[in-house]
């Protein structure tokens, strides 16, 4: 772990610098200050952007809310947000947005950013939103969920939404914190974190966490309900082990982040035709990630400059046990692996121009050093494969915001992306009208693309070489209204059209020569319409009520998509009790969804409750119950699953104790 050494060295330097002592600006008396003449400096550039004026529909979930509502993963955060839904196949969590949750899509159509840096890996383009993210949730300052396409700023993957995770600064942590949790399904969690803002602008935040869960001990899958396959019960195959470390150091204009996470998960669903309830060598996946990144920001003559560079490492290993006819190999083990390594460098400039205009531009370059995939079998007579690939791509973009009148704001941008196989320009535009204070009406036009990923291009070896990016075009109208300081309401209606979908299918019709083969082709178009309503109330005392209703219809060839609920209702209530205690309850309802077999899963209605109680000056207790009423619901499965539906976890309780030492 070389980066740990680098971080230690940097913090040592910081400590040495800090020992010289900070300049005490408060020592200058205010009467003296009033005598000092002001030097003329040309400055002032961008501003705070109210949500009402962002060129998209945005939801923000803060770190406080994550703690108060007991969110354990990003998937939980997204579940709480208007219009988003999550399905889980007992291995990964999958994002549904605006009615789209295609079976087999590893979150490739949502861009996940960590402090502005792309997290989606370079092999599968997967946005890891479950424990496989490898970041302790207690380190999150806030999560911004930006709906709609944003390829005009971020390039590929910013198709349905962008989720930006901002981590906490040392100054906001200001001390040490350690916590342990225990819960049902053999869950234990231990975490420790610390942060501090030192003098001279040096800020350090570090954290580490470990989590183990045995998961549900007996999961019943009716599809396997025969005496030969343990009557459809998967025993002890829901286990999950997670570890993470994180450090961020800010010093002057520089910021460095180093993070690493690892997760191993047993898979109880016997996916891809493996042996059901295999106990000797269970089906399992291991995902590991590490990132090192640096940013430099400063302002030069009114222009704000940001430079950043990062090195990402991603590794996946899967073990899949198959039945074998060979008595020498009672179980045939398939080992599937992928490794993605990339570095990137980017620059961003922004400045205010005369005439109430703000212009932002920049460029980014990605070099995928490795986009490797391989598979092999325990029986050496069966052929495996080693697929080694690398690639590069780059993008340049510009965005301008002009306020024509105090009540009228125009926002437009375009980005050009260059890949080895294709080039693409993606525009976006917004008209934002604020007829009076606290309200805004937005018309948003967007386009986005998703480049075929390495897996889609190479894994099956049969994909036609001219695989093109997917494309989406969207129109959305949003009305946002702040009523006084306590009530916020919004209504939004949209129309999405997706074409050139990258679809896994039989290639027989494509070419005579590859009959019987499967691969990815551009095929299929989807149309979606929807209406989203939301109201949020906050009082001075900290009471929060958030409710939303979503009506959506996403169709392919006039048939409702699988795993696409027509209705969703969400409500949550947070109540402060005294000065430091807090209680919250949340209800999420999702209408019925079609499955791949054109069957239907019932509507799901889940209630979660969480509470925090301080018991001493430095100790507090937390307790939460997820799925309080033990609703037995299921999510639709994908092609790789024999069961058409995947049963979801029932009631799960957790209690925890946390110790905080506040710095001075």
């Amino acid at each position: 772990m070389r980066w740990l050494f680098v971080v230690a060295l940097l913090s040592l330097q910081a400590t040495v610098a800090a020992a010289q002592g900070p300049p005490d600006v408060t020592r200058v008396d205010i009467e003296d200050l009033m005598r000092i003449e002001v030097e003329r400096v040309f400055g002032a550039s961008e501003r705070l952007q109210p949500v009402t004026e962002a060129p998209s529909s945005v939801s923000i979930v803060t770190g406080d809310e994550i703690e108060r509502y007991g969110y354990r993963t990003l998937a939980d955060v997204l579940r709480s947000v208007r219009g988003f839904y999550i399905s889980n196949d007992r291995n990964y969590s999958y994002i549904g947005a605006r009615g789209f949750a295609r079976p087999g899509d590893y979150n490739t159509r949502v861009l996940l950013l960590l402090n502005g840096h792309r997290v989606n890996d370079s092999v599968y383009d997967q946005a890891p939103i479950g424990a496989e993210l490898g970041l302790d949730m207690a380190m999150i300052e806030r999560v911004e969920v930006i709906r709609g396409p944003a390829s005009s700023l971020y390039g590929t993957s910013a198709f349905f939404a962008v989720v930006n995770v901002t981590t906490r600064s040392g100054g906001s942590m200001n001390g040490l914190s350690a916590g342990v949790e225990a819960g049902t399904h053999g869950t234990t969690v231990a975490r420790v974190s610390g942060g501090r803002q030192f003098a001279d602008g040096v800020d350090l935040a570090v954290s580490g966490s470990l989590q183990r869960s045995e998961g549900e001990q007996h999961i019943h899958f009716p599809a396997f309900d025969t005496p030969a396959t343990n009557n459809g019960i998967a025993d002890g195959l829901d286990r999950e082990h997670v570890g993470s470390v994180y450090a961020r150091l800010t010093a002057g204009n520089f910021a460095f982040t180093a993070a690493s996470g690892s997760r191993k998960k047993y898979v109880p669903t016997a996916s891809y035709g493996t042996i059901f309830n295999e106990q000797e060598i269970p089906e399992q996946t291991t995902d590991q990630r590490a990132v090192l990144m640096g940013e430099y920001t400063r302002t030069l003559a009114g222009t704000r400059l940001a430079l950043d560079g990062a090195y990402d490492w991603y590794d996946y290993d899967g073990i899949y046990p198959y039945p074998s006819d060979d008595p020498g190999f009672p179980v045939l083990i398939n080992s599937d692996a992928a490794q993605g390594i990339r570095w990137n460098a980017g620059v961003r400039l922004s400045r205010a121009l005369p005439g109430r205009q703000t212009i932002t531009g920049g460029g980014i370059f990605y070099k995928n050093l490795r986009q490797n995939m391989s598979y092999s079998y325990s029986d050496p007579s069966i052929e495996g494969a080693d697929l080694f690939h690398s690639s590069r791509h780059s993008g340049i973009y510009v965005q301008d915001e002009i306020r024509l009148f105090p009540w009228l704001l125009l926002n437009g941008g375009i980005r050009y992306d260059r890949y080895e196989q294709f080039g693409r320009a993606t525009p976006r535009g917004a008209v934002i009208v604020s007829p009076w204070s606290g309200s805004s009406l937005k018309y948003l036009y967007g386009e986005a693309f998703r480049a075929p990923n390495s897996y889609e291009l190479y894994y099956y070896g049969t994909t036609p070489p001219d695989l093109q990016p997917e494309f989406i075009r969207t129109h959305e109208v949003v009305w946002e209204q702040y009523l006084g300081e306590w009530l916020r309401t919004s209504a939004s209606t949209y129309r999405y059209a997706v074409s050139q979908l990258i679809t896994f299918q039989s290639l027989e019709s494509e070419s005579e020569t590859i009959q019987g083969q499967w691969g990815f082709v551009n095929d299929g178009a989807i149309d979606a319409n929807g209406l989203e309503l939301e109201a949020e109330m906050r009082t001075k005392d900290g009471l929060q009520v958030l409710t939303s209703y979503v009506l959506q219809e996403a169709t392919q060839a006039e048939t409702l998509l699988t795993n696409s609920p027509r209705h969703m209702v969400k409500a949550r209530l947070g109540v402060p009790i005294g000065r430091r205690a807090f209680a919250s309850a949340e209800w999420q309802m999702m209408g019925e969804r079609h499955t791949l077999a054109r069957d239907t899963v019932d509507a799901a209605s889940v209630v979660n409750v969480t509470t925090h109680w301080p018991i001493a000056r430095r100790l507090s207790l937390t307790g939460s119950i997820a799925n309080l009423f033990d609703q037995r619901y299921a999510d639709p499965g994908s092609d790789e699953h024999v069961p058409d539906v995947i049963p979801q976890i029932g009631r799960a309780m957790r209690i925890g104790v946390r110790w905080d030492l506040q710095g001075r």
Partner: protein
Amino acid sequence: MTPFAAQHTVGRVWCAGLAMCLAAGISVVGRAQPVPASALKSAFVMNFIKFTEWRDVDAAAPIKLCLPAEETIGDVMAQTMRGQSVNGRRVSVHRIAAVDAVRDCQVLFLTERDPQRLRTILAAANHAPMLTVSDVERSASYGAVIELYEEGGRLRFAINIDSMERSRIKVSSRLLDLAKIVRDADRQPLP
């Protein structure tokens, strides 16, 4: 550091640290050596914090100071104010980009020149136990607690008594004595 040396430093390095600039400024007050407005404003804000009391707030907890994420002056202020303490409380500096993030701030510095936006932000901050400071013209009469303004090449400040009372913070009489007092009734349209 002699006044001359300090002055020399200011000339060479554009405000390496606020203390240096201020030392230069203070020691040469008689000779009217100017100091960058952003550095000066930082020092004013630190003084405002020093003379402000927040009710119902843990006296040991850090003071959360929010600065705009994308603003030049925010960069300067963040650099000079990080790691500082006022009245035994640490100042924790936060750069915020979204208006929704202002809710938990104890001090909010606003440079928003756009009247519509400023109004939206001040509406979000209104009634919260928050010291809002702004260098935007007429911001105090529009609801900011303190407005920094320039007069005769020097910085002055105005305090809106009504905003102060609404936000349930207590500003010391030493500041009130030096300030131009403004009330909501003086409200004029923003530029």
